[in-house]
């Protein structure tokens, strides 16, 4: 079967729920961050697929994707700074050791 919009939407929703699964099961901050990256990537793939197959007369999907990538890079950098700071003070990056930040 010729791949089209539905195939790419299948791939992106599978990727999204793989990311969600990882976010639920992992208890390590770095792996949780990696799951979030997967989710953001699936959203980018959605934008690109809609731009390619439904509105090829516009470029808006490309711009949304580029801005999402930029914001994801900023988020990853801040998250890793926080993770390294947490490791320095607690000597572990498991989420259960960071529980005292709740209060």
């Amino acid at each position, binding site marked *: 079967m*010729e*791949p089209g919009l*539905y*195939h*790419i*939407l*299948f791939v992106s*929703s*599978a*990727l999204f*729920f*793989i*990311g*969600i*699964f*990882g976010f*639920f*099961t*992992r*208890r*390590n901050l*770095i*792996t949780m961050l*990696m*799951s979030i*990256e*997967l989710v953001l*990537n699936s959203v*980018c*793939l959605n934008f*690109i*697929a809609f731009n390619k*197959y*439904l509105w*090829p*007369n516009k*470029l808006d999907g*490309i*711009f949304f*994707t*580029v*801005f999402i*990538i*930029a*914001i*994801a*890079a*900023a988020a*990853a*950098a*801040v998250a*890793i*700074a*926080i*993770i*390294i*700071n947490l*490791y*320095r003070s607690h000597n572990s*990056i498991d989420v259960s050791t960071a529980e005292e930040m709740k209060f």
Partner: protein
Amino acid sequence: MKGETIIFYLLAAMTLVSAMLAVSTRQLFRSAVYLLFSLIGIAGIYFWLQYEFVAAVQIVVYAGGIAVLIIFSIFLTQKSGEELPKQNAGRLMFSALAALAGFGFTILQIFKYNFIKTNDPAVDATVLAIGTRMLGVGKEGFALPFEVVSMLLLAAMIGCIVIAMRSKPETT
């Protein structure tokens, strides 16, 4: 079966399988490398869709930037050869159930919906067209979000330095 069809299925399989391995392997470094392969697979899908600019951005920022950043932070915070602790089976099962249920529901909705394609002529996604639109201040321009994102990146950079900076020991 045409060549491009086979290439699409190969890229999709590479992306999904390595994403699956990235969230399920218990060795943190391997997980990061699988994530890298998954990101490269997505860049390959962008190439397949003939959006070369987005694919290049994906490779430069994700595969070249974020993956390296994650690997660095793994080196800084993890002892080598150490495996992550096993998850308890109940949580694993319920997370898989939740993810599968959400996936099934979404796929059902997507395949029931009839997407309507526009009839307007397609524009080429050349770098020239993207750059002109990106910095345009007219009706279809994206100059304001561009500036906002640049401010955001500056703020993130300063914030990272402030967060990760080692505080000076008190001089008494």
